[in-house]
């Protein structure tokens, strides 16, 4: 009913601009609108109906419908609805109205559409290169269907450099990354520092592109993609694995057997446990408290062992196929898992109790990295970052998937808006995850692990899936296609949105707090960057001698 209700509201307000609507079930709504009404529809949804912005997606649909396709995804968390507003963009004039002035959170997504598909968001105030490397030739857009996955573009310019903005008055420029001990992955924040205070920053990232979405469209098949999806991230791989499988299942109207759903839930919560414990350790390491880092990782280790016992690997569980899962949880493993959870809870409770009274850590984390409710709404922040600022959003409860609709758990919300609140949220979510796994072990039904799919999946269907990763909402958008592979697969990791909130979080804070503020969103740059990389052998071969390389590394760059 909810989908029908929203559709009626849209039809009432926009009339004939609403061309077509698909409602595959009550929790999903796909609305096709005219390109001229796109901005107004998005504004209506975001501001008047108070939806949450999720992602914008571009697609080269020319081989199939003759147009480009642009989609803006929104979420109605209270009403359990995921909605996608789509429009066709003519192939000879690939321009679409930018929605960034009304939905500030769409900033990066539209720049990415411009970089990779070539659809220009008209009215975007900051249309700089986001994803492609600096020397990439203009006018070549990798995600278009006429660009092969292993094609090397002509005219790659090795010497071209990214043009950064001017720093504000009186500030020095401090480069943070790509090499920095705190960062596990390369990224570049160009900080403008005055004394010890940060006055602004500019982000140039996407250095860990790997061409995942292009490979999925061109080379891999439906059942091979989960193996690659879980390698998008170094910590939360299972989430992408499950989210992709669910998106395809939602598109093809497949329901996996109940045992598979419970097993997916258990593995997802195991992953949440290990990710949160890892993060608490990492946050302590960033503030210099190495002992707590060692201890939380010691407490976390049995989870890795039990995951290895169930799935064969500590982190890349290789769990899902379309229609089910591959690994079973036998009764012995059940008992062992229960033992691990009991021990974990017994060890983690005193640690949380000790840390909550610890003034030393609180001094470094209270009032730092503040993200207020406005920022949460405008930048579309998700996950523990949003929950620590009082926003009560959690995909497990708002858009139930796998077995979460049959389980009972609490969503931890704090109102401090700072790093300390995020520490508390993550530390307490550990206990909720333990509760969820215990319920799953009780309620798990017997049955097959996966369906045996005899027919090919239907073509051209849309599927959406939002899964609560440890870092926030991970959203996958799939259009099924021919040759046993999807036509388009878009992955939106939670860090994609959370990073857009970082400049506001570190402004007017001390430089020493930069790392812990960045660490508090639990950044996973590999998740964010998953797009295009092609072998950049540009045809210009320069052989650097060792002396030249050494001189290059030692020379001072202005």
């Amino acid at each position, binding site marked *: 009913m909810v989908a029908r209700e929203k559709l009626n509201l849209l039809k009432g307000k926009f009339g004939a601009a609403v061309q077509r609507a698909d409602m595959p079930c009550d929790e999903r709504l796909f609305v096709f609108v005219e390109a001229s009404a796109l901005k107004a529809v998005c504004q209506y949804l975001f501001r008047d109906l108070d939806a949450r912005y999720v992602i914008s997606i571009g697609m080269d649909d020319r081989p199939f419908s003759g147009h480009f396709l642009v989609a803006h995804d929104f979420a109605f968390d209270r009403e359990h609805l995921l909605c996608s507003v789509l429009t066709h963009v003519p192939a000879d004039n690939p321009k679409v109205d930018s929605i960034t002035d009304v939905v500030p959170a769409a900033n990066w997504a539209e720049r990415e559409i411009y970089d990779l598909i070539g659809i220009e968001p008209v009215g975007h105030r900051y249309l700089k290169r986001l994803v492609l490397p600096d020397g990439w030739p203009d006018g070549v857009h990798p995600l278009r269907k006429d660009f092969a996955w292993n094609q090397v573009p002509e005219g790659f310019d090795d010497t071209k450099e990214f043009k950064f903005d001017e720093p504000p008055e009186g500030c020095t420029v401090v480069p943070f990354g790509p090499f920095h001990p705190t960062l596990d992955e390369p990224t570049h924040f160009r900080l403008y520092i005055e004394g010890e205070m940060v006055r602004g920053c500019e982000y140039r990232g996407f250095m860990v592109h790997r061409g995942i979405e292009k490979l999925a469209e061109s080379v891999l098949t439906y059942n091979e993609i989960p193996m690659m999806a879980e390698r998008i991230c170094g910590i939360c791989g299972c989430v992408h694995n499950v989210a992709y499988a669910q998106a395809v299942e939602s598109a093809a109207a497949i329901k996996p057997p109940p045992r598979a759903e419970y097993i997916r839930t258990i593995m997802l919560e195991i992953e949440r446990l290990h990710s949160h414990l890892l993060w608490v350790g990492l946050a302590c390491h960033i503030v210099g408290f190495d002992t707590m880092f*060692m201890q939380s990782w010691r407490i976390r280790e049995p989870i890795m062992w039990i995951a290895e016992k169930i799935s064969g690997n500590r982190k890349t569980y290789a769990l899902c196929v379309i229609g089910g899962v591959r690994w079973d949880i036998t009764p012995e493993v059940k008992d062992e898992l229960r033992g691990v959870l009991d021990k974990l809870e017994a060890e983690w409770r005193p640690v949380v109790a000790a840390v909550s009274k610890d003034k030393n850590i609180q001094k470094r984390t209270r009032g730092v990295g503040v993200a207020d409710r406005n920022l949460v709404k405008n930048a579309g922040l998700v996950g523990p970052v949003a929950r620590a600022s009082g926003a009560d959003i959690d995909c497990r409860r708002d858009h139930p998937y796998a077995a979460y609709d049959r389980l009972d758990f609490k969503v931890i919300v704090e109102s401090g808006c700072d790093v300390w609140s995020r520490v508390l949220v993550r530390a307490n979510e550990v206990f909720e995850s333990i509760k969820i796994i215990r319920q799953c072990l009780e309620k798990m039904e017997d049955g097959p692990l996966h369906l045996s799919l005899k027919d090919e999946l239907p073509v051209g269907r849309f599927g959406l899936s939002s899964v609560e990763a440890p870092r926030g909402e991970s959203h996958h958008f799939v259009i099924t296609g021919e040759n046993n592979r999807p036509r388009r697969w878009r992955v939106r990791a939670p860090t994609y949105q959370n990073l857009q909130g970082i400049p506001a979080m570190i402004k007017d804070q001390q430089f020493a707090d*930069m790392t812990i503020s960045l660490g508090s969103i639990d950044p996973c740059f590999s998740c964010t960057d998953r797009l295009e990389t092609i072998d950049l052998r540009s045809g210009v071969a320069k052989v650097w001698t060792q002396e030249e390389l050494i001189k290059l590394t030692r020379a001072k760059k202005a």
Partner: protein
Amino acid sequence: MHRNIIWMILIGLANVVIVLLVAPFFQGVLRKITALIQSRQGPPVWQPYFDLLKLLGKEDIESGESPLMQRFAVYLSLATVLTIACLVPMGCAAPMNAVGDVILLIYLLTLCGICTLLAGLAAGSTYSLLGISREMMTMIALEPLFAIALVVGAVHTHSFRLDTVLNGSVYASAAFPWSGVIMLAVMLLSFQAFVQRVPFDISEAETELMEGPLMEYSGPKLALFKYAQMAKLVIYSALFVTLFVPWGSSLVFPLGWLVFWAKVTGLVLFVTLVAATHARYRIDQAIRYFAGLLVLALVALVLASYGY
């Protein structure tokens, strides 16, 4: 006369050699105990010796703004620390107390800190400059604390001679030594900053500043800097012990000597425990903390001048 001078120089050199031999060992003890607290095996106690040997064997690269100052800073750093070693009594009388007095000691200690500033300036990169600005702020707040401790001792004993001041002189007042007790508390609370350990190793915060002033150092120069830091731990512990924990050191040799080194080991253990259980403070929080301690130290000085 000549025999006296030769004897003095020999004992001074003996002090230097002892410090050089023993400093990496204390560092190793510190690392091993930190590892034990962190539930892991940890490196063997002799590891710092191997580290220094390894670094000394590497290629000597000079980089940064000013390679000349880079060399100068590191030689000066180790030389200063070893000079202080000649002045500090380590279980026996101060070897060179005829040559210098407490004022010289205060200046040499400050010179140690200045060497880090020179090192950061020599590198000239953004992170090292940030590091030395933090180091400067810390030094301004910190050096007076130690100076006041020495001056309190001098006020009590009415002399600036090293062997009188560095002999538990802070307690040498007529009535109950209030100033001595206050200075003991102040020094204990700020000792971590002198030896550059958590929670006060702000200028070299690895996770924030990529080692700050020492960023451009590698190979043999880094070995000398690390050596200077290890020696600083021993020197400061020895100074603290002679100033504030003098009991037992006046026993006859070798008993007094052993007691002295036992006390130094105890202090190193204290440093380790505090370092392993605390997070690093931010520079403004640290400065506020030191300012509070400075006020207490001044109160102690006033009390000392009134004979308490």
